């Protein structure tokens, strides 16, 4: 089973269990930026009052979902982890945090074709706002590279007032302006 088949299997399980989701993390930054390898697929889910055990039962015997919810104190997120034992590929299902931006990001999610199925991912703007937030907190260089590439690839298509609005709320406006400058520097010459 390939990594993308595992992702599709989880999406089918979430849809069958009627749990709204979006595929985030490097999968979404790959879609709008410059693709890189990833060891896992991250989802934001809104299970509401539905039990996660329904998903565990639907994803098949090779993908083991740990029913224990894990709280990550550095990022203040709660998540379930599922692992496809034969390949080592991992799925992380994050509960949608209950703040204004996360509600907005989830409500603005868009559909893209993945293999032969329409799936939900965040918008390019929301990828940038969220990864900037993470970068401000945990300073992982790959997050910075991901969004610098999203900004450079998307360029004029980005809704800058929207991004600036949320960056002002999150205290990341200065970082965002620095990001735009760096994205401008890596524009292909004939287009800059």
């Amino acid at each position, binding site marked *: 089973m390939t*990594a993308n088949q595992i992702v599709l299997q989880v999406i089918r399980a979430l849809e069958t269990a009627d749990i709204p989701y979006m595929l985030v993390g490097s999968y979404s930054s790959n*879609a709008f930026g410059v*693709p*890189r390898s*990833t060891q896992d697929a991250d989802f934001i889910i809104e299970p509401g009052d539905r039990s996660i055990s329904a998903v565990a039962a639907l994803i098949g015997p090779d993908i083991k979902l740990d029913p224990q919810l894990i709280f990550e104190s550095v990022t203040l997120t709660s998540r379930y982890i599922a692992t496809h034992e034969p390949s080592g590929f991992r799925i992380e299902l994050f509960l949608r945090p209950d703040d204004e931006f996360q509600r907005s990001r989830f409500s603005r999610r868009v559909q893209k074709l993945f293999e032969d199925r329409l799936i939900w991912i965040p918008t390019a703007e929301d990828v940038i706002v969220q990864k900037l937030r993470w970068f401000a907190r*945990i300073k992982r260089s790959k997050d910075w590279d991901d969004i610098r590439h999203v900004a450079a690839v998307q360029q004029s298509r980005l809704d800058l007032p929207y991004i600036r609005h949320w960056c002002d709320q999150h205290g990341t406006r200065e970082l965002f302006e620095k990001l735009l400058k760096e994205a401008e520097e890596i524009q292909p010459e004939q287009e800059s």
Partner: protein
Amino acid sequence: MDDIAALALSIERDRIRRARMRTAEQKLLDGGELFDDVRERMIWGIKSDFPGFDEEQILKEFRRRLALSRRLERPR
């Protein structure tokens, strides 16, 4: 700008140009496909490092290396 910096900038600009030529749908698939490719190469590496390993030992060593890589990436 020195030669190395100029080369790095040129490579990065080329990556941006290539990424613009592909659709979001195509690029959505890349992360998983690259993982499959990296996994295959890691398995080859382990087979080369430990020619006497059986399949189970190879997978165990692969999972150990993957876990180490994840630990290094984890937020601290």
